[in-house]
């Protein structure tokens, strides 16, 4: 059993004295782990850092086995972000959320594309904070819990959509949601169809994170008795401390 693919490192855990068990999100094979012999050697540790994009080969005698990994780095974004507190927190949160929510050995090409786009944005783009919310939206959709933001769940209108129903995950217009305002989740305009080009305020990004976080926890993790990883809360705390996000 052997294949080669491209993957982003979600986590790397020490195994014994020399090896690492590396968890990657690959383009064609989904989230996949493998044993990396000699992974704790200094040179290997530099390569196998969280967030790095790798070209990997996986091999095992049987498909069910953990298998052995070899590979080389294509891009090393993780190391580039070490000095930036908020972006580093975003990278940690994104990889931790991916590792916590995606099932193993199931291809999720959209999730891979979303994480790739996020990591590229963290390295250079001005829209990285939005890209993070979009990554979690893509994750929800890929896992079968996508939000329907096309029209109001109650009236069917396509304008003034400002809420999301916590029960159905569908958009709700301002008028229809007014009586239930306290129970509704806020829908930031940049998530609406056609809202991609808008420059949102910090609060909009926080609303987007609250929205995706609610559904990730309620629909994906809670049925398995799990919660969102602490790295995500630390990212939100770090983001909240930034009064204005100049690069949003």
């Amino acid at each position, binding site marked *: 059993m052997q294949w080669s693919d491209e993957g982003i490192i979600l986590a790397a*855990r020490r195994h014994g004295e020399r090896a690492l068990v590396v*968890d990657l999100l690959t383009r064609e094979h989904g989230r996949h782990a493998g044993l990396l012999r000699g992974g704790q050697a200094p040179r290997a540790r530099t390569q196998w850092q969280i967030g790095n994009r790798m070209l990997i080969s996986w091999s095992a005698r049987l498909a069910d086995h953990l298998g052995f990994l070899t590979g080389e780095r294509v891009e*090393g974004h993780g*190391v580039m972000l070490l000095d930036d507190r908020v972006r*580093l*927190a975003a990278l940690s949160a994104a990889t931790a959320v991916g*590792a916590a929510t995606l099932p193993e050995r199931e291809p999720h090409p959209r999730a891979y594309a979303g994480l790739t786009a996020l990591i590229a944005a963290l390295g250079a783009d001005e829209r990285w904070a939005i890209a993070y919310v979009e990554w979690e939206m893509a994750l929800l959709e890929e896992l079968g819990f996508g939000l329907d933001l096309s029209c109001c769940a109650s009236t069917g209108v396509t304008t003034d959509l400002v809420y999301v129903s916590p029960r159905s995950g569908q958009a709700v217009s301002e008028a229809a949601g007014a009586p239930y305002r306290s129970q509704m989740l806020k829908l930031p305009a940049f998530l609406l169809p056609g809202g991609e080009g808008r420059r949102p305020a910090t609060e909009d990004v926080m609303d987007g994170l609250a929205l995706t976080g609610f559904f990730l926890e309620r629909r994906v993790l809670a049925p398995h008795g799990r919660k969102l990883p*602490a790295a995500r809360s*630390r990212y939100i705390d*770090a983001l909240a401390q930034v009064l204005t996000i100049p690069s949003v």
Partner: protein
Amino acid sequence: MTELDRLIQLLAKLPGLGPRSARRAALYLIKRREAVMEPLAAAMAEAARTIQPCTICGNLDTIDPCTLCADPRRDAGQICVVEDVADLWAIERAHAFKGRYHVLGGTLSALDGIGPSELRIDALVARVKEAGVREVILAMNATVEGQTTVHYIIDRLADIGVSVTRLAHGVPVGGELDYLDEGTLAAALKARTSMKSGAA
């Protein structure tokens, strides 16, 4: 199970030793019973009885506070924060730091579920507040998890008004640029320092 099997089994649990090398070590010990085995057994029993973590810094020593914390010649105004006791020993080997230490006991890790409460971060904050510390040097590994911990500690120390620094990232001594990875080179360029010319 014989006593010999038990010895081999226990030796095989040591880092770097497998069953085969444990058998060789056991045989070596038995052949040098008086010269090596008995002193080693006595030293291990004594170490197990006396070595404990220092209540101030987390270092391992036979006394509490440890030798480093109790040494009046060391600068109490500087605290170097490290992940593990092995890192403390590495810095001590360099003979480059004469302040005090604080061992965190790991780094924040999403995968292993290690949060701030599992590390000795509260103890560090309390120590900095009480002991009149001038500078905290964060000597964590240059990994995503190590630097995430660095940023978290910087946040926690922000209100205290202490100077917080971290180890430089860049070209190692004896390192050749051609063999360095892009991340290290980028970090080295970012952290470049100005050089004074004409110094006598």
